[in-house]
């Protein structure tokens, strides 16, 4: 019983490496290096990278910016709660508020156009989960996270909250429309 008793060889550190172990260590190390290089590689050649752009904000400041966008670009309202659907111009800054327990407002974007999407919470942590695209981003209070994104397919998408945010967490859901550009 050697793993549970002291090593029988006092100078165990001089015991030569076994061939099986030696080869495996080399193989595993090379694989770890490959995995490491994939990350910087994707920053250069890949298209899906999370933005580093973020600013400190406050619930008031973020609400004011969102409200300004809503005032300018609302095209219609939906549901009993009259949630505005906003169609901002391509390339512009668009804002999405996460709060207990709703996303506000709803966005309508054009296929193939790029937008600067600002995400922030007004209260607890929330999770931006765009479905079925399956893009998942953590949303913090007091941080304005700017994600530059380009919808590639027209359709109606769901925005689900996937960070537990209290009793009505499972009701926090909204939509994102992507329309063909004319």
């Amino acid at each position, binding site marked *: *019983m050697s793993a549970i008793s*002291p090593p029988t060889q*006092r100078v*165990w550190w001089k015991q030569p490496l076994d061939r099986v172990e030696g080869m495996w260590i080399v193989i595993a190390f090379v694989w770890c290096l490959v995995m490491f290089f994939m990350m910087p590689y994707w920053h250069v050649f890949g*298209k899906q990278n999370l933005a580093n752009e973020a600013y400190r904000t406050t619930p008031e400041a973020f609400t004011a910016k969102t409200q300004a966008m809503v005032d300018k670009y609302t095209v219609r309202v*939906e549901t009993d709660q009259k949630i505005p659907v906003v169609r901002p111009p391509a390339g512009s800054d668009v804002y999405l508020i996460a709060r207990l327990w709703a996303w506000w407002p709803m966005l309508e974007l054009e296929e193939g156009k790029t937008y600067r999407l600002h995400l922030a919470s007004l209260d607890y942590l929330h999770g931006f989960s765009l479905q079925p*695209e399956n893009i*998942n981003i953590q949303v913090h209070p007091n941080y304005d996270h700017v994600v530059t994104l380009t919808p590639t397919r027209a359709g109606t998408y769901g925005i689900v909250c996937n960070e537990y945010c209290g009793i009505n967490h*499972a009701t926090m*859901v909204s939509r994102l429309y992507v329309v063909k550009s004319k």
Partner: protein
Amino acid sequence: MAVNRNFRVCPSTGLSYHEPAEKLMRWNAVAAVVSLLVGGVLAVLIVLTRWQAVHLLPPDWFYLLLTAHGLDMLVFWIIFFEIAVLYFCASTLLRCRLAAPNWAWAGFWLMIVGALVNNVAVFRGDSSVMFTSYVPMGAHPAFYLGLILFAVGALIACFVFLGTLAVAKSEKTYHGSVPLVTFGAITAAIIAIFTIASGAIILIPTFLWSVGLIGHIDSLMYRTVWWAFGHSSQQINVAAHVSVWYAIAAIVFGAKPMSEKVSRTAFLLYILFLQLASAHHLLADPGLTSHWKIFNTSYAMYLAVLASMVHGLTVPGAIEVAQRQKGYNKGLFEWLRKAPWGNPSFSAMFISLIGFGFLGGISGVMMGTEQLNLIIHNTIYVPGHFHATVVIGTTLAFMGLTYFLIPTLFRRELMFPGMAKWQPYVFGLGMAGFSLFMMGAGTLGVPRRHWDITFAGNPLAYDGWAGGTAWLMIAAMAICGLLATVGGAMYLLITVGSVFLGKRIATPDFAYVKARDGVAPTMKPVEVAFEAHGSNIGTAGFVAPGTFVLALVFLLSFVLYYFVNWKYLSTVWPLS
């Protein structure tokens, strides 16, 4: 104060137990099993709620019990058991008296009180904040206080463990270096001390915030420090269950490490690296740069991944060598076919190893890749991953160790031996299916910690899951999860039955003997020739060719799965 130096020698294993240490190990193990029982009952209720076709509980109860399940399982079950393992590795394996048993008891009772206070806070209903308790969502102050008390108790236990090592050294109860398993336990204890320090840095201010003494805690700062604690505590688990793997391999097969140097260095890598890898929990967060994320996930995480890949080879490799030396030397896999599959200690350990590597390990590295995290962050993929690591890996390994401990530590015969034979398979395979289907549903975007993926009654409901593939995945997950809870119930029945009602193992002239009257070992170091393995086993110059083939299969699955996910990512909307 007189020092208790009474020992008994277990007649069947030859291990010597120090009387106070023995009692502490038993009480810690019992507290662990009670936590597992509570957490297991909760598991049934939450799994029946997530199964949308059943949808058992209302949301307030679901979130409450989910919080309690996370804490009772991940914190209380595992850490109580780990303390028992630490005492075993120090006192029993080194044949040394436990340093400061009174302190150890103080630590134990602090942990008990902490666990109770925390559970009461949760069950009162105003602390359903999940075990992560992210600010600014607040819990009752008793929630944090309970965790702090528990952590202080665990810290005391770590110091008793280290103190025991010092006693063993100065009283010369062993020769040369400590056994590999003890070395692994030292790794776990050192990481535990670092972990508890990070826990204090974040939980004490949060406690003060909850009673109104601190005005504001930044949510990103909280997540960063909390995960320095939360992630490294998982590293304790890995170090502990890898030690248990080595221990079971040694107990069942008399296996010795292929090389002490390699295994010990791999443990050392855990201390040096994995604890810094909390970054991989923050990959989808704003306010941290990609450089920071890549640096902290790669150098730190991959060197620890390397360490786990090494243990994943050397543990079965050691078994293979031991088996081949016993004559099971034919072909690639005779050693494995002829392994004692009906011995629950062995089968639990082996399923734990395979499940941890293939399901937990591969998925964990995938999730921990900066960009790939975007497609799984906060989905149910995440609990799928960690039920593979912490349940198949840690919990099942501890179950296997329990079957060994019941006769030697509790001196009872195992009850229901026929059921014990099956238990690791029912639990392990149930859990494997559970994790796999969770990961499947997560790949389809299903969120974790979510009460209703149909969004019933909501005009904006997302309808991509209800009735579709995700729906089936969730149902299959629930059925496998229930199967696993059957396996868990079998374990509880066997252990509780044996410990309280099992036939006592009576040794005719049993007595605790004073150490100086001859129990303390006079072990002679045996100098074995360098070619310990003998060159006549294995094939093609490999002593463990079967293990090497298994390792290559593992690598292949890893590489394929890893790149499949990059492919999937490349189809997602461009982001920058």
